[in-house]
């Protein structure tokens, strides 16, 4: 092997007063922003759907179940392409035109954010449902017997308990959303993986570029995991399963 390692390549000028480190950092910030924004959508929508799935009304739980099957059985790559190519054409009320009139970066980011958010919502929904199911039925009955409405029972009794139970699987979905965000590189969004690819082309130092990007992903992983462990400790209720 006659490969010449050159780690200082990252400090070379890329373009317009930027070094290659700046490229990496800009990719990292897009990946982080994309992951967090999509996670907000996934958590909100997924919780709503998860609650629907546990309601006695068969229609409401059927809608949520259909949503989950639809978004879980089509590959993420196909979904992101449908969001990117098909949605601007078929969305009604000028929404499609509004998307088309955005700048390319805004369009790619919005598309990827919606796609990842809706995709992950299906997984969050299943976790929320299993969390609520894991509670003994007495909890819901006790809430109702105390005179809470069904809404209040969910708000004050069922959800606070079940979210503590499902914190570990939610952590891995949170990690997945950052990993899945790399799929956004296929629609041209210059997030971390795409920057890595661009670095290979520009610097001709493929090993350094890819090792740097891989390490950055590992760093995101470790950071999220540490934060979620801390959160788990913060919200643990003494005497319950998760405080073991």
């Amino acid at each position, binding site marked *: *092997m006659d490969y010449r390692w050159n780690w200082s390549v990252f400090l070379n000028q890329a373009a317009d007063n930027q070094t290659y480190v700046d490229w990496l950092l800009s990719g990292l910030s897009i990946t982080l922003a994309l992951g967090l924004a999509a996670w907000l959508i996934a958590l909100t929508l997924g919780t709503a759907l998860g609650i629907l799935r546990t309601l006695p009304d068969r229609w409401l739980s059927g809608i949520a179940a259909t949503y989950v*099957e*639809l978004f*879980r*059985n*089509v*590959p*993420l*790559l*196909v*979904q992101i*392409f*449908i969001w990117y*190519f*098909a949605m601007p*054409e*078929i969305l*009604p009320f000028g929404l499609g035109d509004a998307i088309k009139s955005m700048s390319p970066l805004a369009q790619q980011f919005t598309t990827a954010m919606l796609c990842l958010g809706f995709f992950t919502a299906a997984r969050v929904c299943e976790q929320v449902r299993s969390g609520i199911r894991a509670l003994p039925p007495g909890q819901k009955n006790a809430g109702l017997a105390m005179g809470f409405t069904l809404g209040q029972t969910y708000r004050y009794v069922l959800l606070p308990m079940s979210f503590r139970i499902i914190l570990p699987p939610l952590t891995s979905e949170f*990690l997945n959303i*950052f*990993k*899945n*965000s*790399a*799929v956004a*590189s*296929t629609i041209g969004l210059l997030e971390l*993986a795409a920057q*890595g*690819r661009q670095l*290979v082309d520009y610097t001709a130092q*493929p*090993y350094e570029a*890819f090792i740097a*990007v*891989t390490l950055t*992903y*590992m760093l995101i*992983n*470790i950071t999220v995991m540490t934060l979620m462990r801390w959160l788990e400790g913060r919200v643990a209720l003494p005497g319950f399963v998760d405080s073991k």
Partner: protein
Amino acid sequence: MSYQFDFSSITPAAIAVLGHGMAISLQITVTAIAFGIVWGTLLAMMRLSASKPLQWFATGYVNLFRSIPLVMVLLWFFLIVPQLLQKVFKLSASNDLRMTSALVAFSLFEAAYYSEIIRAGIKSVARGQLAASFALGLTYLQTMRLIILPQAFRNMVPLLLTQGIILFQDTSLVYVSALADFFGRAYSIGERDGRIIELLFFAGAVYFVICFSISLLVKRTIKS
């Protein structure tokens, strides 16, 4: 809604092309499931073994692959590893290593996920089984092969199949190497005819039907 759908691109000839693509997708899926389970079982056994270096190796391997995106792993295997192999084995640059790279990348990547499922499965077998086999004079490997793993695998079938469905969907990501799998071919037919939207919906529907049917089968195996 002004868009006029036109599915006339999906001719019998196009279906034949897509069928060849599906064969590639399935080939990658089946290979990765087979190697993933074998290598994943070995990794799980290393992680549960008494040897510290083996434990460290398996833990490091699993954590590494589970913390990086599949797209990144595929890019490594498509952009970096072939060049390395060509240099080391003095292959000519014309050798198309993309299919081999895809098979290796998916197998190594999935093994990390399978090993976690299998490790949980092994742990779910009662500890008394291990003690009983040792008491009967079986060696560690015999115990694993004859007593623990057969029971563990029976518990794991639903999870292994579900992971297989995810893997099948993930094979579409070979798109990053322009390898002509089912999705890649659907996309290029759409591009050729200016009917990308129709082909995307068609591809999505095909994936949905396959994955949904298998997941129904998985549910049935859980119930029985």
